[in-house]
């Protein structure tokens, strides 16, 4: 198997570094710092220690027996990233990058956040390592994720609402990049999705690949073999690439990414860039992108703020084209059903992002015999979404 990305950060035609010149030298510096860190046993030991003692790894691979019974087909297993410290997989990448920032002698980190999970994780790591932290968040997301906003502030981070554009994740990334361009000499940009300019897609993937490595070993122990299917939600695609990557060479393992179908693909109100987008450049990389005919980036829509993004990580785009990854979409309504099913049947309340993967796993399990095993990336827990779910179900809380 070819090692990707190549030396210039390309996954086939995708990826790369499409950024203003001001960021080129800092990106090259970051790439070199990361290359040195990954060879340094002290860095690896420190990160492994934090993942184990602080983040709570390894996370369990849990057999969802009642959900399996409900679907009536293939067995469904959950990779429980929702049990990580701060409530989502995001902490894996954040601890890795925050250690890198400290190693590079940067005292300030900036981050973008959609659902707030990456922002909370970044604020957490900043508190842990004594770094100054500013998180950019779309104003619409600030409203729908008020709990996470307050969590970040409690952790000592400054949360800056972004009023520009669609007031969601895409605009938060623009603003974080503008901050980084301005303060590049003192500031580390702690990007939270497997996208952006090289080396970010590689960095984020590498730090999340622990999800797939653990799942592989756990599946071998529990099943005596590898699973038949992996299912994970894909916004930018960080939890998905983390779960998928260690299985790419295992031809017998089917890999399925679940995109946010919003109100339905036909309505145009969705975030399914693989299904309805085409190649374009946003936020420093070439990948699939929802856009108009004249190259303006479209506004995504999803009930889950973390999937509300018009692009997708370049490595996903590459493996879509090669046919290694499949992509499907799940609507807001289906995701809500997945949320309720997992909550009622297993007592596990998933994040709305992860509920997309759960919903598709149920759909897929129905079509497969019980001898098959599906592993779902349960990327985060749903506490942050309770009020969104309440509203969608026609009630109010608090």
């Amino acid at each position, binding site marked *: 198997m070819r090692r990707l990305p190549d030396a*210039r950060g390309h996954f086939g035609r995708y990826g*790369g*570094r*499409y*950024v*203003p*010149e*001001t*960021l*080129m*030298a*800092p990106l090259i510096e970051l790439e070199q710092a990361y290359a040195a860190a990954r060879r340094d046993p002290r860095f690896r030991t420190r990160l492994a220690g934090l993942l184990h003692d602080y983040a709570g790894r390894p996370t369990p691979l849990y057999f969802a027996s009642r959900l399996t019974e409900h679907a009536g087909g293939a067995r469904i297993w959950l990779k429980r990233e929702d049990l990580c410290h701060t409530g989502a997989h995001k902490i894996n990448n954040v601890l890795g990058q925050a250690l890198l920032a400290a190693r590079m002698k940067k005292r300030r980190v900036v981050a973008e956040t959609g659902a707030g999970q990456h922002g909370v994780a970044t604020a957490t790591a900043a508190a842990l390592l004594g770094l100054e932290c500013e998180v950019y968040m779309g104003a619409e997301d600030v409203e729908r994720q008020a709990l996470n906003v307050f969590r970040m502030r409690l952790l000592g981070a400054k949360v800056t609402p972004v009023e*520009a*554009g669609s007031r969601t994740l*895409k*605009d938060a990334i*623009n603003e974080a*990049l*503008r901050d980084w*361009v*301005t*303060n*590049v*000499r003192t500031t580390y940009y702690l990007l939270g999705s497997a996208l952006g300019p090289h080396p970010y897609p590689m960095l984020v993937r590498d730090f999340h690949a622990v999800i797939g490595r653990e799942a592989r070993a756990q599946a071998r122990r529990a099943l005596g073999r590898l699973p038949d299917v992996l299912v994970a939600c894909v916004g930018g695609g960080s939890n998905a690439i983390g779960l998928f990557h260690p299985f790419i060479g295992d031809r017998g393992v089917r890999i399925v990414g679940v995109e946010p179908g919003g109100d339905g693909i036909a309505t145009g109100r969705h975030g399914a860039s693989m299904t309805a987008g085409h*190649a*374009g*450049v*946003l*936020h*420093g990389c070439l990948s699939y*992108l929802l*856009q*108009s*005919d*004249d*190259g*303006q*980036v479209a506004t995504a829509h999803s009930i889950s703020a973390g999937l509300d993004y018009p692009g997708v990580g370049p490595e996903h785009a590459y493996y879509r084209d090669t046919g290694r990854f499949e992509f499907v979409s799940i609507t807001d309504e289906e995701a809500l059903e997945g949320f309720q099913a997992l909550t009622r049947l297993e007592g596990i309340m998933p994040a709305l992002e992860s509920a997309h993967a759960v919903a598709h796993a149920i759909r897929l399990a129905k079509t497969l015999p019980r001898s098959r095993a599906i592993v779902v990336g349960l990327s985060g827990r749903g506490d942050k979404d309770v009020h969104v779910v309440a509203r969608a179900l026609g009630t109010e809380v608090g």
Partner: protein
Amino acid sequence: MSRLDATFVALRRRGERALVAYLTAGDPSLADTRRLVVEAVRRGADVVELGVPFSDPLADGPVIQRAGQRALAAGTTLARVLETTATLRPDVAAPIVFMTYYNPVLAFGLKAFARSAADAGVDGVIVVDLPPEEADPLAAETQAAGLDLIHMVAPTSPPARVRMIARRSRGFVYVVSLTGVTGVRTEVPKELEGQIRTLRAVSTRPVCVGFGIGTPEQAAAVGRLADGVAVGSAIVRQVERHAGTPDLVEKVGDLIAALKAPLRGG
């Protein structure tokens, strides 16, 4: 010799510095842009930069962000900016440079863009988020079409990159004067002189400095170091202030004349 090359040769001969005036195309309308370009050149702009708006302008500060949003809301597209340029070209002798982001160009098609731009009388193009490492596909097309692909150097660019960028840049080299987004600042950065010295040591190409320059005093200071001074946000701000009034063209022209004055020779 390209129109940009000829312009800088002529200015050097006269001992003048170029005023590179930026306007966001389509703000407030393309009809206004047409009038503003003609007036800008009449009042002293030596090169006109036409910003082709993009939905996610990550290198721009609030003023140019707002202008881009207004232009997009008014229906501005790359195709329509090309049409407008073609219609105003007979009235304007000065070089016209497009400044944009890569995605609109990519969506248009690189070959189609380079040919259409050359046919419309565009002289050069600056793609803010396209560093030389990713520029080969576009550079092949712009070169074939006779269009200058202009690259930028930044305060963070180490000397080896400065040399590489200067070698690959056509027409002129655009020096980004500060780490940050577009927008007027109170002072000209102290490092600028060293930055230009590094560039001059490795390149004989004309050097234009942009980002952060908005007043005649700043233009004068930068004009002592560079061959050209690019002003964007201050002009766009003037457009914003007077859009929809009968004074728009004149007020923008007045600002351009004031910015050009300290750049004239003698």
